[in-house]
């Protein structure tokens, strides 16, 4: 997972209309999204992974996600893993039911008491994971989230040809940006430091193959028009080489 500032967590829910467990997973996801952690979570629509939700796919690729599934088929977990990135947590309602020693829930359309209880348990588990991921703790006494711990992670040194100073997107999303010179003009590349870090951690040295894969990731966040594509490609290649070399030097 790239080191993006983790200010949001994605919740992916199974749709499972044919099973009561599916309804439990949807309602548990909604409880986290609407009641327990509304400011810290966003929903990711499962069919949109395939039906054109580029934003959903990109989000799940760069931010942590929690999958809540109804059954052992684990469609939400597996689809997120297949189309974006591995979720940091998977809750499976059928397994949770067994763990809790409960009977199977009943009522796809209107849950029985067991179903409602499972909604509570699953949503609390997911909310606690959200807190852990965001470096926050829930104050049970105060009933509020405790202040966020300061992020002490070190930022990598700016690569040559980039502009130091502006490290995150000015929209406030916390997404880091890197400005590169493309055709003598400054272009802001969203999430580029995180993309570089991700490739570096995967041990992908600068090469034509790496560059092609890099550009695919870059385009998820920053649309590149065809007239500047070649220049943008050259700028990204140069910046990644500098990033890679800096890391190698640090390792000695």
């Amino acid at each position, binding site marked *: 997972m790239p080191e993006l500032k983790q200010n949001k967590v994605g919740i992916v829910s199974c749709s499972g209309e044919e099973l009561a467990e599916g309804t439990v997973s949807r309602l548990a996801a909604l409880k986290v999204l609407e009641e327990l952690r509304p400011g810290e979570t966003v929903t990711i629509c499962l069919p949109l992974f395939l039906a054109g939700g580029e934003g959903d796919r990109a989000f799940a690729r760069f931010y942590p996600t929690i999958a809540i599934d109804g059954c052992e088929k684990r469609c939400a977990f597996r689809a997120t893993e297949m189309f974006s990135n591995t979720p940091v947590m998977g809750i499976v309602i059928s397994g949770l039911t067994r763990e809790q020693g409960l009977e199977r829930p009943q009522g796809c359309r209107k849950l029985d008491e067991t179903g409602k209880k499972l909604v509570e348990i699953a949503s609390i588990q997911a909310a606690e994971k959200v807190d852990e991921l965001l470096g926050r703790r829930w104050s049970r006494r105060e009933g509020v989230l405790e202040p966020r711990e300061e992020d002490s992670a070190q930022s990598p040194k700016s690569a040559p040809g980039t502009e130091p100073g502006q490290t995150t997107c000015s*929209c406030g*999303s916390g997404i880091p940006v890197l400005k590169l010179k493309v055709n003598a003009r400054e272009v802001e590349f969203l999430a580029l430091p995180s993309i570089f870090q991700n490739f570096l951690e995967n041990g992908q040295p600068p090469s034509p193959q790496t560059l092609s894969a890099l550009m695919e990731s870059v385009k998820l966040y920053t649309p590149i*028009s065809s007239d500047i594509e070649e220049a943008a490609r050259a700028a990204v290649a140069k910046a990644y080489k500098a990033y890679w070399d800096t890391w190698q030097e640090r390792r000695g």
Partner: protein
Amino acid sequence: MPEVFVFTIDKFSFRVPTDRLYSAEGLWALAKDGIIRTGLSDYFQQRSGDVAFVDVQPGGKRVRRGELLVSIETIKITSDLHSPLAGRIASVNPAMQRSPEDINRDPYGEGWVCELEPEDWEEARLSLMTPQAYFAYIQQDAAQELE
């Protein structure tokens, strides 16, 4: 294909094409062959939600700058948008009646709202934002919202 500015918040990406001007309310204005085509910006439509109803002032009507041009209703909001220029409404996109969701699907293309024959374009354009200014404006707006 014009250059497009984009910024991303969570899973939402907001696009600002650089070939047109913008009002702070969220309308865009694109001049072509003496006609000004207008529509809703991507930022405005995404923040407003799925468009259910669009009421555009009728074709042929003269509107003053700042006068009501179009009202939209989504599940979340009902919003009035005002004309960024004075002129006569030359045509209204028929899709606004048939499939107003075109605004969500393609806000800068098939989801255009109406076309005006301008009367004060040279003056009106000065009161509109450049793509760069509008891009900065919506980023600031989004940042304030997040706070």
